[in-house]
């Protein structure tokens, strides 16, 4: 009788618990709280936090290679690069590139914000990360979840959980992180600049754009192909107007399905043994640094462009060059309307915002070419 009881105890996970496991539970609980109560990116944080919780229950072997359920999700979805491009297909089907096409100069703002990502790359090297790790930390500044995961799984899979979670967490915190930097780097006068009406963009122009962009970006940076191809295919679905069923399938059902597997797999990479080392925790600090610097370089790029432009742009929209669609654009609009309440920057900020998505993919592709 006693023996049966003993066996039950020893085969249970309880005796194999480590302090690290319990600490990871706490992290999972905090993220669950943020997702459910505060609704910070709940679609992503909820599966991620549950993934963290379940892999830190000992002896479940959910992440055991060739054996565990979530390992299969991770292996086929993330390691084999299936999920991030599928999410990009859905994103493409949702994004309206109209504001960007109406004002192609905003593409340069999308590039401007990526400078922050390379600054962070350098900073991470100084803190003792190696080249590949530093690149996957730098990309956090692009504020683009799928790209962060795509690059992270190739260059530094051991830090994937940390880089992905910090990218998504800071994206939710954009309304808190960005405004102080915006106010610091722009004058009241600049924030008041009214950009007027946006020129109309015809259907033909919207159809040409994804085709043209796919060709150019893939010709110049071939490693960007999986992401850009799917992003622009989704957008072509949307703008062609003839395949509404495919547009809806990409942006709703397919997107929702892969979001579940992405979140769960990313969360499940965060076992106590991998996650709880000071280096990984530093990723969160550098991630915040990346967001800050990217915002700043975006703003500075806009101010720099104003030196040459006759029709001045409102430098605030440079801050929307970090992707974080559409949080960064909303944030720009809010700060702009504080300075001048008749200032409607929302659509003008969507230009650099969607350009930022393309810019981040380009930056990731160049990292991959050099380091992959």
């Amino acid at each position: 009788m006693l023996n049966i009881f003993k066996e039950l105890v020893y085969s249970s996970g309880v005796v194999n618990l480590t302090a690290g496991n319990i600490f990871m539970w706490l992290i999972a609980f905090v993220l669950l709280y943020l997702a459910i109560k505060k609704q910070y990116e709940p679609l992503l944080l909820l599966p991620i936090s549950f993934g963290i919780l379940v892999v830190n229950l000992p002896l479940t072997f959910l992440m055991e290679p060739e054996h565990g359920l979530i390992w299969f999700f991770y292996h086929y979805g993330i390691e084999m690069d299936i999920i991030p491009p599928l999410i990009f297909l859905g994103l493409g089907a949702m994004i309206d590139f109209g504001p960007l096409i109406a004002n192609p100069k905003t593409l340069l703002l999308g590039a401007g914000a990526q400078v922050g990502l390379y600054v962070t790359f350098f900073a991470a090297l100084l803190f003792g990360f190696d080249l590949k790790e530093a690149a996957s930390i730098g990309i956090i500044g692009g504020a683009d979840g799928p790209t962060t995961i795509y690059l992270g799984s190739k260059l530094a899979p051991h830090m994937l959980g940390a880089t992905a979670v910090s990218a998504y967490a800071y994206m939710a915190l954009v309304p808190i992180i960005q405004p102080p930097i915006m106010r610091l780097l722009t004058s009241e006068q600049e924030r008041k600049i009214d950009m007027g009406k946006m020129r109309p963009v015809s259907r033909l122009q919207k159809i040409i754009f994804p085709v043209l962009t796919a060709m150019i970006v893939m010709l110049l940076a071939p490693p960007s192909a999986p992401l850009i191809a799917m992003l622009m295919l989704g957008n072509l679905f949307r703008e062609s107007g003839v395949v509404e069923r495919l547009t809806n399938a990409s942006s709703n059902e397919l997107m929702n399905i892969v979001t579940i597997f992405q979140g769960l797999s990313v969360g499940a990479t965060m076992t106590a043994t991998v996650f709880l080392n000071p280096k990984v925790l530093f990723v969160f600090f550098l991630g915040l640094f990346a967001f800050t610097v990217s915002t700043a370089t975006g703003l500075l790029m806009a101010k720099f462009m104003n030196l040459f432009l006759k029709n001045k742009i409102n430098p605030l929209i440079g801050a929307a060059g970090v992707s974080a669609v559409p949080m960064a654009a909303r944030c720009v609009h809010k700060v702009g309307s504080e300075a001048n309440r008749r200032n409607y920057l929302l659509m003008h900020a969507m230009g650099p915002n969607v350009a930022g998505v393309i810019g981040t993919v380009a930056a990731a592709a160049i990292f991959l070419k050099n380091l992959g």
Partner: protein
Amino acid sequence: MIDWSKAMEVFGSGIIGVYLIMGLLMVLTQIGLKVVDYIEAWNKRPAPEQAQ
């Protein structure tokens, strides 16, 4: 140890590369806009003439 020359290469080629891609995309999008504007203006022109 970190290979700083490689780091500089990644840093430099990254920034230049991103600006190059986005800059080229900007120029081509602008050209595309102009061409489409022109085509659409040209398509519209005959219509009122026929009406007269």
